[in-house]
């Protein structure tokens, strides 16, 4: 965990040879006992957090679910599963396997007439060529593709496998959520740190920027960005990232204002640490738990936002599938009674988002320094 683990095994009897304005002091220090080579490292903050996290059963189960999802996403991204999600493998709107195939539709209720067939060859002008056509057709191989009557979780209107679609959709939706959250966190943390640490003119300018973003209704801002950038995954990531940083910015800013005047930061200034070192190596690690928790909340929020965007047709491209596009398709299917696409997308999303939220909750409990020592 610590960068200096490797450098601890100091050579025995190494004699420091620093100089300084107080020679008496250096001499006194050199005569001190030789440094001990072995140092046991104490439990760091993250280590302690992990130890606390392990005792939270709900959090742990949720973490396992989230990891399982991440594995699924990785496999989908590598093309191991759901590679052919666009293939029409089933009959249109094939029902899920556990329901069974749709009963054949009762057509031809009209009574079949009795009596001999009418010979039309006398009047059919094409009749002489039928034989020739049949012969020519026999030269080509034809194969009837047997489409599945049922699919594991049903099919959409083209007969595509809903399960494969949902897996692929998970990949896209989660990717968008996580990437957008990263973008927003980066912007929010950086601006919040600058505004909170420097205050004054810099702070005023950033507050002004923040107010501009906050003053426009969120959904309108998203529409505006979407209209300018067009559809696509990158666009959605950028839109959500660029519009979603403001909450995190506020929180990081307030944390920095609080920490800026703490004595340990002043002590760092007194030893001559630079401004950037104070901001990023002294204060930032102390507010990192706030950032982390806020970021996981953003992931959940952005996944939902992507769903809404795609549902409204402003989200990912037509060639892609996400939970949002699945829900958008489900709208028209539902009227016809084909509910499985809606169910599949909802189930995937509900399980992931719930697990992720509960994991975040456990994470916050584990990281909150105020709980330290209470347990």
């Amino acid at each position: 965990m610590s960068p200096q683990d490797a450098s601890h095994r100091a050579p025995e009897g190494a004699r420091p040879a620093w100089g300084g304005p107080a020679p008496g002091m250096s001499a006194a220090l050199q005569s001190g006992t030789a440094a001990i080579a072995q140092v046991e490292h104490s439990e760091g903050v993250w280590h302690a957090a992990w130890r606390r996290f392990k005792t939270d059963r709900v959090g742990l189960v949720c973490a396992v679910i989230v990891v399982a999802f991440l594995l699924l996403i990785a496999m989908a991204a590598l093309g191991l599963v759901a590679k052919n999600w666009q293939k029409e493998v089933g009959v249109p709107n094939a029902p899920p396997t556990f329901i069974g195939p749709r009963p054949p539709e009762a057509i031809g209720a009209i009574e079949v007439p009795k009596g001999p067939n009418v010979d039309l060859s006398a009047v059919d002008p094409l009749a002489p060529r039928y034989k020739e056509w049949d012969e020519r057709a026999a030269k080509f191989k034809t194969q009837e593709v047997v489409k599945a009557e049922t699919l594991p979780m049903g099919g959409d209107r083209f007969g595509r496998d809903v399960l494969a679609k949902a897996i692929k959709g998970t990949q896209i939706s989660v990717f968008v959520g996580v990437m957008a959250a990263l973008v927003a966190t980066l912007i929010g943390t950086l601006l919040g740190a600058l505004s909170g640490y420097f205050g004054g003119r810099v702070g005023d300018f950033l507050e002004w920027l923040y107010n501009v973003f906050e003053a426009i209704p969120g959904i309108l801002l998203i529409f505006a960005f979407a209209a300018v950038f067009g559809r696509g995954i990158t666009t959605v990531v950028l839109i959500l990232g660029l519009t979603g940083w403001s909450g995190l910015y506020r929180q990081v800013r307030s944390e920095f204002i609080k920490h800026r005047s703490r004595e340990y930061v002043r002590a760092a200034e007194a030893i001559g640490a630079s401004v950037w070192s104070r901001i990023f190596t002294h204060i930032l690690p102390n507010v990192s738990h706030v950032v982390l928790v806020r970021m996981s909340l953003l992931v959940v929020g952005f996944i939902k936002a992507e769903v809404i965007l795609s549902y409204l047709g402003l989200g990912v491209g037509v060639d892609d599938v996400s939970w949002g596009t699945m829900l958008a398709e489900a709208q028209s299917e539902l009227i016809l009674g084909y509910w499985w696409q809606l169910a599949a997308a909802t189930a995937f999303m509900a399980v992931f988002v719930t697990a992720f939220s509960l994991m975040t909750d456990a994470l916050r409990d584990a990281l909150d320094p105020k709980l330290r020592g209470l347990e």
Partner: protein
Amino acid sequence: MTLLSIQDLRVAFRMGKVNGVAQRAEAVKGVTFDIAQNTTVALVGESGSGKSVTAMSVLNLLPDNAERSGKILWQGKDLLRTPLHELQHLRGKEIACVFQDPMQSLNPVFTVGDQLCEPLVKHMKMGQRAALERAEQCLVEVGMPEPKRRLAAYPHELSGGQQQRVMIAMALACEPKLLIADEPTTALDVTIQRQILELIAEIQRKHRMSVLFISHDLGVVGEIADEVLVMRNGILREQGPVAAIFASPKDAYTQALLACRPSLERNPARLMVIDDHIAGRAAQQEPKPKDPSAPVVLEVRGLSKSFWIKQGLFGRREFKAVQNVNFQLRKGHTLGVVGESGSGKTTMGLSLLRLHEANTGPMSGEAIFGGKNLLTLTDRERQPMRRRIQVVFQNPYASLNPRFTIGQTLVEPMAIHGIGADTNERENRARTLLEKVDLDGTAFGKYPHEFSGGQRQRIAIARALTLNPEVLVLDEAVSALDVSVQAQVLNLLKDLQDELGLAYIFISHDLAVVRFISDEVLVMKDGVVVEQASAARILAAPREEYTRRLLAAVPRGYRPARAVA
């Protein structure tokens, strides 16, 4: 008659499970004592001795993970077996509490009047108007100036001493039989501490109630207690009447506590620390004489610092925090700076380090250090000077970065200033410094939260020493520590000064401490130096009324004369 009788009280805290085994930490290990009516009982001990836990278990104000056993008899009724709703009747009405930090104990969004009336309406079933009248009476009783106006004031409009007066007024409102005062003066200046102590003693006499007074400072306790209980590690070490405890303490620990406080009467070269006393070592009596012709390292002439205070929409007003301070600091000497909060002593110290941002207000004067004026250096010129003048802050809990190991904390300044050739060398030096401040090498990989306040303050001193400074600004560096720990840190500072020839600027509100360590003393009031003389002269013949007041405020422990009078 016995009011409260505590019998074999044990308190343990559940500390969660490690490998499936429940962990318990025992804070109080079988304590037995009585509080009679109309007496003041003092409970004395260092932090972690279990004194507050003992007091808070009377009203069950402990966290949920506490387990209590034994007996707490309140007028014959066992409070450990009393249901919560009955306890709530007792709380505030029969037994009232005053806590350490008045700023945190008062609710910032309610007025003083609202907060005073709450217990009256709840416990005494008074109407709003009657409650307000009683609240005003209470404020008069605790000596609050302009009580009627204060009823409508919010806590932040009051000073620390006034806030503590409000807390005491709240505790008195329902005329309780027992007042539990948990370190009520620790967060306050010595002068305010004196006023609050006198107030508590006076109220106790007037209402003939009992007081359980908790403190880490035997000097404070000696002035008001009838009975003293000394606690250490959850066990009562000694108990008895105050005269007996002060005149002939039996337990070695009590003797040590009495000896470790710097006093105005004696001035040993080193203070006794607990271990010394228990081991039976005698204190060194004669301080080493200092070389009066040592070279001057820092000369300050006409130092002034102001802050801008916003006024109206565009206007600003100059607030003069420090005005025209002059002094010379010689190598190996200590300049003590004394004053109450708001006297500008900290601002003066931090101005020398330029730790105030430039836009907060103008600064003038000269501080000549190594031939350069510290106050006019550019940022680039300042960096090498930073090595030579360092600071130790008051609060050891806030001045170390909680996410840095002690090793990282100590290596960082050396890396910034390029002291030591590589990381190995710097780490070796950091370990040597840790040993110098009496911590062992295992501290290197630990985090600040694993250390006690005194140990953290020593780490902060070690950090300041990493840069081989010539001048160390100690900003209330021992004020947040228990007296016993304070003695250790003061001794350490003296040893380091002897060994390394450091010059100190020692800022404190406690004249006894300043006298112990300083050669020359500046007394500051409202940003102005009112008196400046050698430590011995300030003590023997204070010129100013203000200095005399500061001197009178230092707790002197039990004096038989008072008991007679």
